[in-house]
């Protein structure tokens, strides 16, 4: 529970001694390695620089939520890099609990911004040297300047930019602005909004307040992960003009009380058919006709459509201070116990993420890469036009596993990458008043 000492951590002296043995063996097999790299033909920028004999015994355990830690991606990385990668999935709260209470059982922590802030505070992760990240200069300015296309990225909640940097490798407090050390490096992110059935909702939804419309009483649902469910609710209430929040991502007790009381009122009037906690539940609710409008994630909307049921992802573009998407971002963190070759392997793994394959993969279900320039190379012009440029799909769009998703001519809900990401108005978070908020959320649940 408290800070757990890493008894397996090697001393730096030990590590450098081990390294001194390498050169002779390394030179002997250098030729073989180059050959192996060439025949693998993986097209990876920067073939493994660690000695092949040593890395094949290395196993990296990458732990996190299912929509971010994906087996197919781990398998491809293992194939390209020559060491073992094990992907383990947990839900958001189980994941952060594991990082903090059993840090040695994880090598690569898949962190959201707020989790990175916590993990740094607890000292379970080590700073990532951004100099060792080859594509770092090509990261979008969202992550290096806190802006996109010349427009500041909002700071309600915990934006990835805000949570990314620390001053020194072992700092526990965040630093404003780019430094040499990162808490986590973004790998996948998106903008969440509302999903609805266009055949049963009589107008195009562009505002969060439609989720509260009494017309949809008993046919609406909301996300039941307290930390972000309350933000969806806040977006609704703000949209309806009931309240103006100072910071939806870090509410005061009064704001929390107002929000929860409103939610309880709605619940008692029978407004919510259900609340959902997992991706699959949200898909089921919509596909089974239980709800016709609910807070939802982009790939979940796609999953409903694959079942031949019409479903639209509402473009909730900002209107003044109202509306906007709730953004989230998951990234890679290095656990503190990583040293020596395993740490080298972890850096190889991080660098692999930005070579394009992974970026293209996640883009095919509607998420984004922090380095679109490399992802683009791995995508077809059709895919690029549809997912990033918001243009009508020149031909049929398939998901990462080859299943047909959208017909030719379809335009992505919400439009282009810039249209969607620039309209993020708040980020997933853990509020200062999280304990209080949680208690009040339980009031809502039991009401």
């Amino acid at each position, binding site marked *: *529970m*408290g*800070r757990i000492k890493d008894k397996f951590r090697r001393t730096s002296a030990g590590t450098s001694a081990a390294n001194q043995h390498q050169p002779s063996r390394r030179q002997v097999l250098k030729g073989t390695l180059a050959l192996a790299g060439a025949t693998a033909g993986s097209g990876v920028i920067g073939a493994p620089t660690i000695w092949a004999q040593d890395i094949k015994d290395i196993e990296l355990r990458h732990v996190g939520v299912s929509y971010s830690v994906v087996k197919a991606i781990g398998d491809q990385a293992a194939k390209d890099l020559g060491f073992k990668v094990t992907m383990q999935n947990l839900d*958001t*709260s189980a994941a*952060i*609990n594991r990082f*903090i*209470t059993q840090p040695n059982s994880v090598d690569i922590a898949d962190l959201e911004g707020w989790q990175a802030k*916590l993990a740094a*505070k*607890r000292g379970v992760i080590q700073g990532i040297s951004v100099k060792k990240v080859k594509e770092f200069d090509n990261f979008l300015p969202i992550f290096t300047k806190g802006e996109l296309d010349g427009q500041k990225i909002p700071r309600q909640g915990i934006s990835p930019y805000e949570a990314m940097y620390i001053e020194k490798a072992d700092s526990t407090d965040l630093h404003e602005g780019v430094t040499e050390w990162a808490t986590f490096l973004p790998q996948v992110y998106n903008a969440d909004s509302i999903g609805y059935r266009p055949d049963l909702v009589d107008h195009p939804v562009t505002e969060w307040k439609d989720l509260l419309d009494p017309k949809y009483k*008993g046919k609406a*649902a909301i996300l*039941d992960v*307290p*930390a972000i469910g309350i933000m969806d609710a806040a977006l609704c209430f703000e949209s309806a003009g009931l309240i103006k929040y100072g910071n939806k991502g870090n509410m005061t007790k009064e704001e929390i009380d107002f929000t929860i009381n409103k939610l309880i009122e709605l*619940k008692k009037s029978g407004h*919510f*058919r*259900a*609340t*959902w*906690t997992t991706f699959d*539940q949200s898909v*089921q*609710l919509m596909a*089974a*006709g*239980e709800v016709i409008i609910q807070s939802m994630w982009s790939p979940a909307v796609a999953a409903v459509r694959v079942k031949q049921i019409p479903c639209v992802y509402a473009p909730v573009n900002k209107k003044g201070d109202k509306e906007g998407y709730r953004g989230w971002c998951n990234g890679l963190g290095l656990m503190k116990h990583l040293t020596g070759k395993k740490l080298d392997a972890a850096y190889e793994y991080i660098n692999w993420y930005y070579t394009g394959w992974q970026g293209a993969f996640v883009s095919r279900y509607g998420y984004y890469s922090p380095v679109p320039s490399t992802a683009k190379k791995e995508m077809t012009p059709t895919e690029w036009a549809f997912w990033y440029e918001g243009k009508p799909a020149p031909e049929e769009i398939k998901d990462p596993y080859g299943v047909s998703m959208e017909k030719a001519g379809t335009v992505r809900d919400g439009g282009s990458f810039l249209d969607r990401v620039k309209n993020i108005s708040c980020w997933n978070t*853990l509020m*200062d008043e*999280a*304990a209080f908020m*949680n*208690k009040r*959320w*339980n*009031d809502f*649940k*039991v*009401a």
Partner: protein
Amino acid sequence: MRSIVKAKRGHAGWLLILPLVLILVPFFIVPIIGVIAASFVQSDGFGGIIPSFTLDNYKSVLTSQLTLQLYWATLKFAVFAWFFSLLIGFWIAYFLVFHVRNQLLALGLFLLCTVPFWTSNIIRMISWIPLLGKEGLINSALGAAGVIDQPLDILLFSSLAVVIAYVHQLTIFMIVPIFNSMARIDKRTIEAARDAGASRFDIVRLIVLPLCKTGIALGSIFVVSIVMGDFFVVKVMSGGGSASVVGAFYEDIGVLQYPTAAASATILTVIVSLLVVAILRTVDIRKELTQ
């Protein structure tokens, strides 16, 4: 001589309980001491603890209106699940023991009762959803028959759905001990009662029920403690519309409030223990088991 034998016997006793001790101490006693210890310290709000003794966690849990509501909600489910699983379990066991003459057939039917339990809890629970949903089998059938013109919302994502899932999952825990108790009832007692002119109802009331009190008590302990400690069935079947004691402190763990969660867990353990003690007071299990 005698003392040596006695000493040996003593050792043998220790040896016999050793496996149980080896399991209980590291996997039960130690963790629960950890939980209790954690319930008396403060949280630093970042998943860490401040190791100074405090009663604040208990104070905040025990003085909160929320705690009462949560226990009320969970106890309500426990009572309903207990009542219906007892009702169904008792009659199934009764049928198997007293109405199926062929003992092999009775045993076969008894095993048949366990077949649904070869698959996971989660599957058994989730399979109710397509049956009870708005566009589910029951609503479609009722709609087609013209009984209803609007689908019944109450079937799914409701307290009713939670109770249905619990009863489905837990009735077996009633059947097994009650069947066991009933099978031990001397059939001649029943015949004698019948000869003496007792009605079927009297036989159940005056002979069968008292003689399977132990089975009922054991079954009740299973059902009540499982429902009190569950959060998943409530979460899924109520569609997130209802909360539970465990669900609430699971959310605390989600925001790294370990000490509060530990205090809630300790309180729940005490309350469930008290419930078990209360149930055990109605029967002498030791006497029954050594018969």
